[in-house]
């Protein structure tokens, strides 16, 4: 269960604004996080608190394949991302590193910047505590849930190799 303040962005949030290429040679997730979103929201890094929730429109995470994008968002303190839709490489990367994302166009419409939001990643239930409205995210296919349950693709593969799943 995640709960925090919503940071709301529009459609086509690209990986170049999530983490600009000029910082891609940063040596750690913490370093990357210092520059997360700075080209579209210079206040983000100052304002974000651990557990906060990022909300985006259509095609969130489009552009580059850089896994640095979900890594930077997670290291900034964001607990999960809700979007109307995700660009496919970002979608894969988030699942592969075990970072929770939820697809829910209705929630994106029903949440404003600064709203207090609660997310149950297991059931896909999203609650806007500020307005009292609830939304239901599109569930992941069972196969993807198995990867998420293991904490990401590599832990999943290791568990599979050991015959644990």
């Amino acid at each position, binding site marked *: 269960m995640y709960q925090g303040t919503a940071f709301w962005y529009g459609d086509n949030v690209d990986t170049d604004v999530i983490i600009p290429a*000029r910082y891609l*040679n940063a040596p750690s997730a913490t370093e990357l996080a210092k520059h997360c979103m700075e080209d579209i929201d210079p206040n983000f890094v100052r304002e974000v608190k651990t557990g906060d929730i990022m909300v985006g429109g259509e095609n969130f995470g489009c552009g580059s*394949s*850089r896994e*640095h994008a979900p890594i930077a968002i997670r290291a900034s303190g964001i607990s999960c991302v809700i979007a109307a839709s995700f660009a*496919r490489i970002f979608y*894969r990367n988030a699942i592969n590193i075990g970072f929770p994302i939820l697809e829910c166009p209705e929630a994106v419409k029903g949440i404003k910047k600064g709203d207090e939001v609660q997310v149950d990643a297991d059931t896909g239930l999203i609650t806007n505590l500020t307005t009292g409205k609830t939304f239901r995210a599109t569930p992941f296919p069972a196969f993807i849930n198995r990867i998420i349950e293991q904490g*990401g693709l590599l832990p999943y593969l*290791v568990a599979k190799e050991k015959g644990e799943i």
Partner: protein
Amino acid sequence: MGMTMTQKILAAHAGLDTVKAGDLIEAKLDIVLGNDVTTPVAVDVFDKAGFTRVFDKDKIAIVLDHYTPCKDIKSAELCATARNFAKRFDITHFYDVGAVGIEHALLPEKGIVGPGDMIIGADSHTCTYGALGAFSTGVGSTDMAAGMATGENWFKVPAAIKVILKGKLQPYVSGKDVILHLIGLIGVDGALYKSLEFVGEGVAALTMDDRCAIANMAIEAGAKNGIFPVDEQTMAYVAGRFKRPVRVFEADADALYEREVVIDLNTLAPTVALPHLPSNTRTVDEVKGLPIDQVVIGSCTNGRIGDLRAAAAILKGRKVAKGVRCIVIPATEEIYLQSIREGLTEIFIEAGCAVSTPTCGPCLGGHMGCMAAGERAVATTNRNFVGRMGHVKSEVILASPAVAAASAVAGAVASPYDMEV
């Protein structure tokens, strides 16, 4: 119901007779690719998971192309991590400074990828190899690590959009104009999660360089992959390069497509994409005269020999306008050498261009041509997002090599047709 070309390649690599859109499959990989930005993250993930060997040292390609020759110490550290990994596992297709080219020009040129292959690369423009009739898609570093360890990965079988190409391109109109036009038509998420399958009699008249530029930017429409049928030109290109057996897949006659888009190549004009989305397209005539500070001719989209020839044809005997910096970056060492042998490099230097060794460099605002606030570039690259080529207040206009060269001469966005006397 039949399968698309993409679905046939996926089915064959998953050991299945048929697949359909939406199926989740595990498929065997022919090549796993990474670069100097994405490989170090993959190495970290690979080591943390405790893997001690790669599935096949001949099926992994590591190409140090983004920030090389290293622009600073941090980049040098990243390259060292990738280089050590390549050494540790004796990776066959490892390319470093002096042999390196931009990965998506290099892999086809070296015959590392070919028709019918199943390829993942930790770089979004990995979709380029669809030009050769391969299934090829960009992934992240964890996927690269998984691919290197197991030789397999999971995929959701994509639905497809059929793009029917008719007719033949006019002079000064290229593959870049075709793909910019298409992205303008369907939008940056117009093909989200889907394949773009290019078909029709217009394909035959497109050069391999044109096809590479088109497939390269499939990702800019959100596509999982872009793919061309294998024809005589493809076979002529891979002959002598690609050593593994060629596997030709064709879409079934009754394959299901979600949508059809028809493009009449005869009617296409030189096209540009204004800031800050590749879908923000105009014909060059609609925006000519916009002043510019920089021109970049290169990248995995347009750094091939055909692109350099198109640019040189316009720059020959002309000068880059005062106040404009024109940077030309041949995509591989072989293209660089060819450009020298054909006299193109001389044309560029005499015109007042800076010619660089192969690198992704300015395309992603890495090095070799970052811009200051308020500056504007015409570039043959693939993305014009906010801050892509430098300062957050700089602007990139995407264009073909011919338009970029004409703009360099004019000092403003210009049409190659206006260069004729």
